[in-house]
């Protein structure tokens, strides 16, 4: 028998509130090109991106700490596939432990030749020193900055 189908598209707009902690973080990025984490007084760990509380001590974080702009690669991947609603490939992104932070921050890596992924993996090997770069026009978003090999 003939089997029929129907196409459906979900297109939903959300207007998310970011809350006090993330608002401060993004304001500092937008206005000053600086990245801040939050320190937990009990564990002494600096959480980046900043959170209002520590998931380990379950206590409120107490102090803003500027981190970076230098750091080291903690994880990376190179995407070569086009996914719907995601950027055109290829691109490199991953996580960096910024100087002064205890947890890693996600972002794009730029300036890496992705022609050969195995060579690119050597260039961005875990532990490689990188530096945070900021866009000249910033809107207060994680896409306002990226990482380049130092």
């Amino acid at each position, binding site marked *: 028998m003939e*089997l029929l*189908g129907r196409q*459906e598209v*979900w297109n939903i707009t*959300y207007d*998310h509130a*970011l*809350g006090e902690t*993330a608002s401060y*973080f993004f304001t500092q990025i937008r206005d000053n090109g600086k990245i801040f984490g939050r320190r937990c007084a009990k564990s002494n*760990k600096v*959480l*980046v*991106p900043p959170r209002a509380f520590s*998931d*380990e001590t379950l206590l409120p974080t107490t102090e803003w700490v500027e981190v970076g702009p230098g750091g080291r690669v*903690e*994880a*990376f*991947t*190179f*995407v*070569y*596939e086009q*996914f*719907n*609603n*995601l*950027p055109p490939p290829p*691109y490199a*992104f*991953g*996580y960096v*432990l910024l100087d002064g*932070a*205890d*947890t*890693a*921050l*996600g*972002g*794009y890596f730029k300036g890496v030749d992705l022609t050969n*992924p195995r060579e*690119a*993996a050597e260039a961005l*090997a*875990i532990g490689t020193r990188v530096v945070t770069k900021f866009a000249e026009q910033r809107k207060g*978003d*994680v*896409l306002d900055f990226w990482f380049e090999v130092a």
Partner: protein
Amino acid sequence: MTDRVGIIGIGQSNFRSRRDDASYPDLVREAVVPAMLDAKLDFDAIDAVVYSLSPDAMVGIGNAERLGVDAVGGRNKRFLRINTGGATGVSSVTAAYYHIASGVCDVVLTAGADKVGECGDSQTVLNKIWDPTYERALPLGTINMLAMSAVRYMKRYGMTEEDMAYVTVKNRRQAALNPRAHLRKVVTIDDVMDSRIISWPIKLMDCCPQSTGGAAMVLASEQFIRDNKLDAVWITGVACRAETYWMGDRMGNNPTAEHADAYALGRSFAQSYRMAGITDPANQVHVAELYAPFSNTEYHAIDAAGLVAKPGDSIKRLRDGEFELGGRVPVNPSGGTLCTNAIAVTAMARVAETALQVWGRAGTHQVDGARVGIASGNGGDHQIFGTMVIEA
């Protein structure tokens, strides 16, 4: 607790990319009916239904458990939906288990289905599991998240892209024996290595498919099973564990849950082994169905399950054939998640396949003499884990 909980009925679809002949509730029912026949019970015997359903957007039906109530005979019964992402299936069996272990119910049905093949945008859906505050603007998805786990596993334990390919080759060979599996074509190391790169080091053939199908299981109390002279296998260990949402907290300075590994999965296995009285899993477990949607993740799952002496030993031992059908502890004899991933029921299929193995009913992919099996599910993604020990 003296009264055990047994598995008395199992039903699974043949998993495919699409099923244009079946609506979503039709697929659920396709699994429920054989499970009920297997249990030799009618619906009046079911005290509660645990509905297994991961993100709504994957089936494209908001709160699809509404539509599923009829297919599971849920009218006027206790009814509960479970969603822990990829772990949903094992979480659902766990919830069914606790309905009985608590003494509230004698017989519980758990069932669900997924139609991932109808969702052209599964990575769009999965990108939405990241928080809108900090990380959503990044191109995160489950593939690149686990590619970053692979990169860290490479650094810590020396895994290579070829080591990853060995997992795919093993699981495809096993899936070829399993008529219910989705990807059943045998592939070579070269086929995997030559497949296109998706998110390095993960290539196309290191990835699970987007599958459509359903699964159902019927659980009952030991008393009910004895009173009704039913056949059963037993859930002797059950646990679940979660770890931090923040991927960046699983790296950096002294992380609790290292992103290369599956920390909370290891803790969950340890708990379920304690409950089952298993002290030496590498020698006491006969078969394992471990949730691993990408080839690299099977290594840290084997490590977390304690089937090797220390993390990273899984690489060489897999290459030596220890986890093949016919090897020391066959891992994913069904072909596993790498060959079939209907997300809402994938982790239930791990439990169901393990139960069939220790029951001696796995058919063409039976592990000879299996009496003790383990199953796991990972969800959230790679954040929330469930584990079981199942014994004949």
